[in-house]
């Protein structure tokens, strides 16, 4: 893992310059200025936008405010997707800053999950970590950890503490010396062109002949259209073009 430390840091500290603008039909007592913020790629919208919320609520009346939600060019933004994923999926070809519209009414029930509190974000994040460990280690590593370790993982993310986070996460990224890798690789492939939200399948890190699988192997097996020469879209992982990283999954 040590030679990957630079990549880990690049992913963790990735930021997206964003401009938040209040939806024009929201009722305000005076004009709302846009709010600029650098968003962490690895975090979640509802976790990092307290200041955005406060900024716009200052010019609104309490009765005109209900649950906040975000939208980009008409598409409601799923807060439960990592910010970097949302950007790469929807806005990577547009000029920076990323322009997001802020809403305080007409919550789109059919499109978005509710986020009643930070507990909802924590529950979602931990649920993803647990599912990943079910694939990697049959849940053995995550279940052997104490509650305080789970808490440290969450707090590391919430407070943007790379070392605090990785002190625990490194245990989730290890595998026994006799194995060649995890049991299955946890992955999800998102595309805007398909109806289903993502592709997720069981995929082993090692082929039958003992060769390590590459990202190319994975894509060829589960999403061959992504490699079609005619379209040739470049797969992205948190904004980093993956050709360079394709040697080893």
């Amino acid at each position, binding site marked *: 893992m040590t030679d990957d430390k630079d990549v880990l840091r690049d992913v963790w500290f990735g930021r997206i310059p964003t401009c938040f603008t209040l939806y024009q039909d929201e009722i305000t007592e005076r004009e709302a200025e846009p709010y600029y913020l650098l968003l962490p790629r690895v975090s979640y919208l509802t976790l990092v936008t307290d200041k955005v919320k406060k900024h716009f609520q200052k010019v609104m009346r309490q009765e005109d405010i209900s649950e906040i939600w975000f939208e980009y060019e008409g598409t409601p933004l*799923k807060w*439960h997707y990592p910010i970097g994923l949302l950007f790469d999926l929807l806005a990577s070809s547009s000029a920076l800053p990323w322009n997001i519209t802020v809403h305080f009414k007409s919550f789109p*029930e*059919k*499109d*978005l*999950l*509710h986020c*009643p509190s930070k*507990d*909802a974000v*924590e*529950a*979602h994040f931990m*649920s993803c970590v*647990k*599912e990943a460990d*079910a*694939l990697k280690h049959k849940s053995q590593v995550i279940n052997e950890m104490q509650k305080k370790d789970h808490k440290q993982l969450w707090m590391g993310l919430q407070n943007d503490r790379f070392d605090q986070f990785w002190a625990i996460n490194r245990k989730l990224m290890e595998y026994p010396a006799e194995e060649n890798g995890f049991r299955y690789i*946890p992955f999800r492939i998102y595309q805007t062109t398909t*109806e*289903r*939200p*993502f592709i*997720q*399948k*069981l995929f082993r890190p090692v082929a039958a002949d003992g060769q390590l699988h590459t990202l190319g192997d994975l894509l060829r097996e589960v999403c061959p259209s992504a490699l079609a020469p005619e379209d040739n879209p470049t797969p992205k992982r948190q904004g980093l073009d993956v050709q360079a990283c394709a040697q080893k999954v």
Partner: protein
Amino acid sequence: MDSSDGYMCKMHFQIKNETVVSRAGTSAHEQTCLPMEEALELPLDDFEVTESTATNEVIKYEYHVLYSCSYQVPVLYFRASFLDGRPLALKDIWEGVHECYKTRLLQGPWDTISQQEHPILGQPFFVLHPCKTNEFMTPVLKNSRKINRNVNYITSWLSLVGPVVGLHLPLSYAGAASQDE
């Protein structure tokens, strides 16, 4: 491993605070045990609400059974709305959980029932978490082998988890399962 996936779906109407309203018609598909690997999208039943009083609200429940390849167990997804389309909130769902499961729910509500994105439809659904499924299904399977009786895993699982979220299976399900022996 290429498994075309789908889900089993069931609609159900209930008057709030009262027991199940009778349904007109049952799809033949619901009574057979279907391998989860088949792509299936069952036709929704036509349900008739036979009784409703002005002071009670009718709630429409939609249940989907999907298979989680991460946990290798079936997972129950569901959503609920009033007839005018207003969806129920997570708080309403938690409050609606049967009394005998309330204690367990309150110990860790976020670990038990939460709102999640349906992996095929991409829409918000409530989910009964699968983490503990193996814990309670193992004794059922062990016991069935002991008494040398075929057990339809899905029927047994659904009869165990369904009532937690208000889904009650009619006895005809058990009858249909044993017909396959």
